[in-house]
């Protein structure tokens, strides 16, 4: 049996759970990563305060791929600047593009995201753009050199689930890159749903960070994502449509 790997920009992963590291304390990160079975963790870049002794990198287990985001960027230029700085810290070529200039809904700007993707892909980054699920924008991102597409399920931090389900399904059906549902997933059942649809992976942060028991919720997500993946690979069973079969036969005319 062929192994079921997630491949992003030529890098292989067994886990399909991308864990966010925001909004919870550093000493819980290790347990969360372990329980999540996560092989990719997202980070943000901020100005360093002098005398900061604790650094998040010291809390992340060895071998986990770091995925810096460009949060804080309001346009392509700022996203590019943040990505370049992040690479300078020396933790690999991965970057999650996040361009937001809407402080109310925090919705990503697809146009600026495409521009940033194009620049960074040319510089050798493994670019994973966070985007509003729009097919044309997704195609532009593919052409710009993205390594995956990360459509939002619902506004960041809302825990509302996959409100954009039909549109994410279109991306899954039409785009050849891994589709990773990012933002809005609030419960393991919603992560499972995304995976059943054929998403390549799920990214979650707030849902875990705001749980009563963070490591336990990380584990619940891990199981849900694995279950959803298995269901997708198994092929979902039929849903019997209500109502009788259709009217008069259409094939009665056939001869030879």
């Amino acid at each position, binding site marked *: 049996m062929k192994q079921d790997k997630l491949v992003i920009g030529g890098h292989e992963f067994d886990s399909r759970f991308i864990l966010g590291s925001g909004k919870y304390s550093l000493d819980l990160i290790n347990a969360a990563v372990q329980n999540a079975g996560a092989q990719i963790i997202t980070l943000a870049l901020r100005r360093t305060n002098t005398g900061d002794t604790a650094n998040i990198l010291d809390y992340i287990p060895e071998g986990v791929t770091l995925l810096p985001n460009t949060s804080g960027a309001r346009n392509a230029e700022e996203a590019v600047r943040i990505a370049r700085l992040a690479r300078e810290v020396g933790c690999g070529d991965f970057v999650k593009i996040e361009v937001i200039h809407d402080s109310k809904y925090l919705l990503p700007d697809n146009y600026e995201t495409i521009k940033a993707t194009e620049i960074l892909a040319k510089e050798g980054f493994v670019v994973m753009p966070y985007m509003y699920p729009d097919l044309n924008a997704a195609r532009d991102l593919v052409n710009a050199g993205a390594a995956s597409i990360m459509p939002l399920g619902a506004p960041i931090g809302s825990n509302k689930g996959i409100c954009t389900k039909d549109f994410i399904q279109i991306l899954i059906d039409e785009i050849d890159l891994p589709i990773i549902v990012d933002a809005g997933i609030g419960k393991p059942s919603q992560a499972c749903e995304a995976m059943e649809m054929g998403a390549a992976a799920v990214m979650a942060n707030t849902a875990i960070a705001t749980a009563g028991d963070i490591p336990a919720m990380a584990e619940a997500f891990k199981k849900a994502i694995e279950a959803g993946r298995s269901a997708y690979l198994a092929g979902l069973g039929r849903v019997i449509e209500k109502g009788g079969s259709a009217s008069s036969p259409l094939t009665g005319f*056939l*001869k030879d």
Partner: protein
Amino acid sequence: MSKRIDKNTNHMQYTEDMEAIDSDIMDQVIAEMEAYDAAKYTAADVKRALDAETCSPEDFKALLSPAALPFLEEIAQKAQKETRKHFGNSVMMFTPLYIANYCENYCIYCGFNCNNKIKRAKLNTEEIEKEMRTIAETGLEEILILTGESPNMSSVEYIGEACKIARKYFKVVGLEVYPMDSKDYAYLHECGADFVTVFQETYNSEKYKTLHLGGRKRIFPYRFNAQERAVMGGIRGVGFAALLGLDDFRKDALATGMHAYLLQRKYPHAEIAFSCPRLRPIINNDKINPKDVHEPQLLQVICAYRIFMPFASITISSRECARFRDNIIQIAATKISAGVNVGIGGHTGEEKGDEQFEIDDARNVEEIYQMIEEKGMQPVMTDYIYV
């Protein structure tokens, strides 16, 4: 002059004067076709395909399999639903116009082939205009211009002149001519052509080489990539077809669908069309050949195309009988020819050259129009705005 292409020429190698584009669609289609084992699909696979909201390539394979034949009624019902969703009750009408029948290819199954002693002719521009005027008077607004495949006798410039005349009389101009380079397609687009159809005949290249013994058509990849070159040249829509029955029709139908599917994915703006010609099985033949395309199999293929690509235009040939055509336009086909004459100059009653094949449904435009209306459908001459 380019080198003579005969049965010893490597059919997979472009000749020097052919534009070779960088595309992996052909390799993908051939890999899919070679891996397709129609016998392994089960009734459960077919049911799953029927229930799926969008038809995946896997579902398409199931719908083309022998296991799907017992579900033909359900498949037709689903195809009809998809057709209604995307096209409502409309049926497009058009007619083909053969302006020449010179051909440089030796295709052993074709009446036009260069070794057949038939009456050859080509219409001059006055004759083309006369034919087109006559056709336009019937009310048709879409025309399909055909030539035999002879770049020497029917040059790109000659076809371009025909397109320019056609633009005066018709709103939509399609071409079914020999494959050419993208710059030639760009030129013909400028002259007024918007749609290009090329039949691959069979996607099995080993079979292909035994059927196409000479002429440029022998070069399989050049023909395969014609639609992509047409799109690169600015052509708006492209048509695909295998001549079902030349080889394993299930594999050929699968390849035709995948060819269109992959091209549409690469060029999302390209409009997609299918034609569904078949070699008729020999009647009263005791041997039942599983490769034969009888009416149920033809219906199966057309419905599978419809369900796989619900937005595609599907044309039903006048080689099929009136009964089949009248029914298929209510299920899956969306385009029907009318007033068909496949000779050279036949529309004005002065036929100069012989026909490529015999048609079955000879009804004129008025008769087809009325038939469509009687079926509760809406005949449409054009739904296209030239931009």
